[in-house]
C-alpha cells in the first residue's frame, strides 16, 4: 500500500525543545511503528560526579542535570550525603527546603500543563497558564536568587533565609495563585475542544502502569498510588498537609488534572511551611567525609527520582547513580504511540512532561 509516511519527531522540533528523537511510521496519520532515541543529552554527569567534582560541590552539577527539578536533584544528593556524613538538619531547614521544592513543583506542573495546551494548538491557554505561573517564578527568584537554578540546598542547610517581606508575599501570591489555578483547572476541565484532544488519548490503565512501573503524575493519573513523598521520609511532608492525588482515567487529560491537583496541594503545603516556620539558623555545621552506601528516593515534579551514593571517606564520591522519573516513564511512552494519531503524539509526549536531560544525564 502506498500509504507509509515516516515522520521524524525531533531531535529539533518545535513541540519538544529538548533534543529527543522519535521516528514514527504512519499510515493515514496513524502511527504504526515507533523508534525512540533518548540519548541526545548524554553529557557524562555520572562520571564527572566521581572524578571532576568534590563531594562539596557535586550538587551544583547535579542541579544542572535538569532545570525543571534542579532542586530535587540537588536535594536528593544533599540528603544522601548528609546521611552518609551523619548530619542532622533542623526543622527550619527542612521546612525551607520543602518550600522551595514545592514551589518548584508548582511552576513545573503549570508549565507542563501549559505546554500540553500549546501542543494541542491551544496557544491562549498556554499563555494564560504561563501568565499565572510567572507569580510563582517571581517568588522563587525572590527566595533563592534565580528563577530556575536555585542552588538553594547546601550540605547542611540552605543558602539563604526568608525575610519577613518575602514571607508575606509568599502568602499573598500563593493565595492568588490558588484562585488562578482553580480557574485554569476549569478551563482544562470544561473545554470541549481540548477535551477532544486530551480525553481518552494515550490511555494507561492501572494494570499497565503497574506493569511498566510508571512513576509520578503519570502513574497517579492511572490510579497507581505511588509517590516518594509518601513512601520515603526525606522531608516532613506528613505534618505539612501532604495528600496523594489520584485520578483513574489514565489519559492525557487525567495527567493534566493530577498535576493541577498537586499544584493545589503544594500551595497548601507551602502555606503551612510559612505558617510553621521557626526562628533559627539555616545552616548546621558539617564535619566529616561521606562514607558508605545509601539509597534515596525523592519526588521530583515528574515523579520519583532515585539516587544511589557510595562514598569512601575521601573528598570524591565513589559512585553516584541517578535514576530519574522520565527514565522510568520512557518505556510506557513508547508503547502508547502505536495506534494513536500523529496529531495526538505531541500531546502524549508532553503529557509525560518528559525531561530527557536527566534521562541521558
Amino acid at each position: 500500500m502506498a500509504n507509509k509516511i515516516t515522520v521524524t519527531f525531533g531531535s529539533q522540533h518545535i513541540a519538544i525543545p529538548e533534543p529527543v528523537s522519535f521516528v514514527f511510521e504512519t499510515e493515514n496519520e496513524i502511527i504504526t511503528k515507533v523508534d525512540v532515541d533518548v540519548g541526545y543529552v548524554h553529557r557524562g554527569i555520572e562520571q564527572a560526579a566521581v572524578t571532576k567534582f568534590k563531594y562539596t560541590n557535586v550538587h551544583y552539577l547535579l542541579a544542572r542535570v535538569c532545570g525543571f527539578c534542579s532542586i530535587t536533584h540537588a536535594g536528593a544528593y544533599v540528603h544522601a550525603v548528609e546521611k552518609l556524613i551523619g548530619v542532622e538538619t533542623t526543622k527550619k531547614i527542612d521546612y525551607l527546603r520543602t518550600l522551595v521544592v514545592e514551589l518548584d513543583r508548582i511552576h513545573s506542573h503549570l508549565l507542563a500543563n501549559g505546554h500540553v495546551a500549546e501542543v494541542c494548538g491551544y496557544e491562549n491557554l498556554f499563555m494564560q497558564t504561563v501568565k499565572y505561573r510567572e507569580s510563582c517564578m517571581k517568588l522563587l527568584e525572590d527566595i533563592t536568587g534565580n528563577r530556575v537554578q536555585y542552588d538553594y540546598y547546601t550540605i547542611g542547610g540552605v543558602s539563604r533565609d526568608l525575610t519577613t517581606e518575602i514571607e508575606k508575599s509568599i502568602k499573598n501570591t500563593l493565595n492568588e495563585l490558588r484562585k488562578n489555578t482553580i480557574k485554569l483547572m476549569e478551563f482544562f476541565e470544561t473545554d470541549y475542544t481540548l477535551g477532544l484532544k486530551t480525553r481518552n488519548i494515550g490511555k494507561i490503565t492501572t494494570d499497565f502502569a503497574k506493569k511498566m512501573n510508571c512513576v509520578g503524575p503519570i502513574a497517579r493519573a492511572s490510579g497507581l498510588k505511588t509517590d516518594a513523598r509518601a513512601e520515603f521520609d526525606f522531608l516532613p511532608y506528613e505534618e505539612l498537609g501532604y495528600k496523594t492525588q489520584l485520578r483513574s482515567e489514565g489519559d492525557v487529560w487525567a495527567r493534566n488534572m493530577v498535576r493541577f491537583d498537586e499544584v493545589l496541594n503544594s500551595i497548601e503545603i507551602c502555606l503551612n511551611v510559612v505558617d510553621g516556620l521557626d526562628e533559627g539558623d539555616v545552616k548546621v555545621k558539617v564535619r566529616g567525609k561521606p562514607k558508605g552506601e545509601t539509597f534515596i528516593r525523592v519526588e521530583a515534579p515528574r515523579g520519583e527520582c532515585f539516587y544511589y551514593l557510595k562514598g569512601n571517606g575521601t573528598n570524591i564520591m565513589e559512585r553516584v547513580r541517578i535514576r530519574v522519573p522520565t527514565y522510568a516513564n520512557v518505556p510506557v511512552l513508547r508503547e502508547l504511540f502505536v495506534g494513536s494519531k500523529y496529531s495526538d503524539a505531541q500531546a502524549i509526549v508532553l503529557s509525560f512532561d518528559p525531561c530527557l536531560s536527566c534521562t541521558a544525564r
Partner: protein
Amino acid sequence: MSKFRKKSPWILHYNTGGCNGCDIEILAALGPKFDIERFGMLNRGNPKQSDILLVTGPVTLKCRDVLRRLYLEMPEPKVVVAMGACTFGGGVFRDFYHVENGVNNILPVDVWIPGCTPRVEALIDGMIKALDVWEKKSKDKEYLNNHSEELLKEIGAIND
C-alpha cells in the same frame, strides 16, 4: 530596506544538551509577561525561515551534527545566539567526555548571554544585541558559500 530587518527576527531554538533551564526561560519569554513577539520575534521552529539560531546547552557529541545541519539549512544573514553558561565552553559541563565544550567549537557564535540560568531580561538584552549584529551582517552580505563537500559528508547531509 534593512531598516525593517531589525524588526522581524524569527528564532530557531535548539537545545544541545543543556539542563532545560534556559529552555524554560525561552518559553517564559514567549509568555505574556515578557512577550518577545513585541519585537516581532517568533519561534518558528524551522531553520528555513529563521534568522536567529538560539542555542542552549554545551553541545553534546550527539547533538553536534544536528546543530551543524540546522545551521547550514538556515539562509543568510543569520545570527547565532548562545544562551547560558553551558554554551560558553561548556559551563558546568566543561571538559566532560561527551561534550564539545560550547557552541563556539562548532559554529561561530555572535552573541553570548551569560548566566545559569540567565534571566529573561538577559535573554531580551542578548536578542537586541543580536539584532545589531544581524544588521551589520546583512549590510556586509558576507555569505558563506559552497559548504565544502567534506563538511557535508561529515555531517551526513540527507540524500534526498
